[in-house]
């Protein structure tokens, strides 16, 4: 075996995986809310306006991280089915295009009219486009939503497959990696939307709407519970698997990444926000005012921030621990 190669993928990749996942999760939940109807349109709109940016930013980081960044376009001169990175870069492109179209559809009509004339003109000549009257825009949003959900889920899964589909790296090489990254991405999306709703409510842009907030909190509770049930078999299977797997999981069972994983990811990234969100929903449900408005307001924001920090930590632990662990000889 040759000399250790060290950690080739660093914090830029961690950030990229986090932002891409968070944007994908945001768009998936925003599109879901569109399908659920006008009750949750504040979530649909906020999500549609926010979602493309983290993904675009993350993709920028990814290109910046390349050793030969000026050649990044070679990704799009081919499609290599067996390379998660190749499939992923196509998925990201499709996602970004559709997310930008979706963003446009969610702009208020008066903002749509402000699109520069040359752009408007060419759009009109190509597709007969004109600023959309409210009903027409709404119809197109509802048509686009069922397409956005699968593409967003695909981006969320791909960020995990990128790491998981490497038999060489026992820490990553389990089907649960992709699932964990997907559900963490959706949870990050929910958290971003909760934070956005909260800020919009505080700043008086929109009155804080409890119904959408509670929907997001309920969804996030379900996602966090699913993540727990992914982490348990992940750790068990690695610990009870091959010697390479067992050695790799030691990194989070006593090894270098034990504290970051169990404290940052599991305790503060999943456990505490779960309790905060459950308290929030419980209080709302039973119309309790025992905790006052503090929990109702800041509890949601605190939970959202913790979920996002947990999402970063999860990717940090995975990216770094995964590159330390290797197949054992023999």
């Amino acid at each position, binding site marked *: *075996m*040759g*000399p*250790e*190669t060290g950690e*080739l*993928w660093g914090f830029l990749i961690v950030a990229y995986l986090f932002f891409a996942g968070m944007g994908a999760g945001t768009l998936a939940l925003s599109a879901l809310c569109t399908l659920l109807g006008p009750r949750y349109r504040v979530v649909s709109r906020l999500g549609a306006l926010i979602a493309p940016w983290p993904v675009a930013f993350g993709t920028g980081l990814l290109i910046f991280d*390349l*050793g*030969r*960044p000026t*050649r*990044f376009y*070679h*990704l799009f*001169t*081919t499609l*290599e089915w*067996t*390379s*998660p*990175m*190749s499939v*992923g*870069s196509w998925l990201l492109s499709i996602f970004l295009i559709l997310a930008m179209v979706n963003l446009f559809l969610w702009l208020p009509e008066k903002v749509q009219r402000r699109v520069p004339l040359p752009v408007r003109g060419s759009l009109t000549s190509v597709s007969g486009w004109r600023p959309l009257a409210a009903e027409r825009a709404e119809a197109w949003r509802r048509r686009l939503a069922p397409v956005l959900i699968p593409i967003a889920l695909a981006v969320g899964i791909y960020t995990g497959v990128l790491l998981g*589909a*490497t*038999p*060489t*790296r026992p820490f990553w090489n389990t089907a649960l990696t992709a699932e964990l990254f997907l559900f963490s991405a959706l949870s990050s999306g929910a958290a971003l939307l909760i934070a956005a709703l909260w800020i919009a409510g505080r700043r008086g842009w929109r009155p804080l709407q409890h119904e959408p907030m509670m929907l997001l909190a309920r969804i996030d509770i379900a996602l966090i519970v699913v993540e727990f049930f992914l982490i348990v078999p992940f750790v068990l299977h690695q610990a009870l698997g*091959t010697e390479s797997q067992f050695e790799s999981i030691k990194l989070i069972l006593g090894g270098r990444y034990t504290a970051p994983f169990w404290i940052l990811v599991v305790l503060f990234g999943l456990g505490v926000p779960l309790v905060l969100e459950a308290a929030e929903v419980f209080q709302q449900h039973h119309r309790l005012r025992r905790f006052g408005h503090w929990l109702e307001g800041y509890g949601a924001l605190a939970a959202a921030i913790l979920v996002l920090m947990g999402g970063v930590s999860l990717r940090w632990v995975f990216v770094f621990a995964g*590159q330390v662990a*290797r*197949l054992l*000889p023999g």
Partner: protein
Amino acid sequence: MAEKRMGFVIIESRCIDCRACMVACSVENDVPVGYHRNWVNTEGPTGTFPDLGMRHKPGNCMHCESPSCQRVCPTGATYTRPDGVVLINYDDCIGCLYCIIACPYNARYVNEEIGGPDKCTFCTQRIDKGRAPACVETCLGKSRVYGDLNDPGSEVSRLLAENPSTRLLVDSGNGPQIYYIP
């Protein structure tokens, strides 16, 4: 007659850990200082005094049958020649380093000069002219042997027919094409 399938046979008992193969490779292929495309691993000492033993396992890119580096390459820059030699086309390489992460043998390293991965090329500039790779030519114990594994008459095929051999990390699924004869 099947296509050519180039590979190495390494006779471990003949390796004396002189590392001339590493020097020869670096000189032949202009490998940046601090890196090597090949290596010599040492196992042992084993046994109890006075019956002690040490084993040396030289290695380099295994030019795998189903190379994981090639599978994960997003641009198709890593490719396999018809004779089984795995190479990198630097016109297409974007420097994502996925291949280095996917290689179970640590056979690749980052060449800072090109901002991308680099590895053993089987000295194609030599074997295409019928000369042995630099590491093979210089090996003074004749531990390193190269040749066409699909040609039953080649030295590598003859050695493998007559001796038991092992390969490294077969569980990786890569199908490495370096055969070790203890």
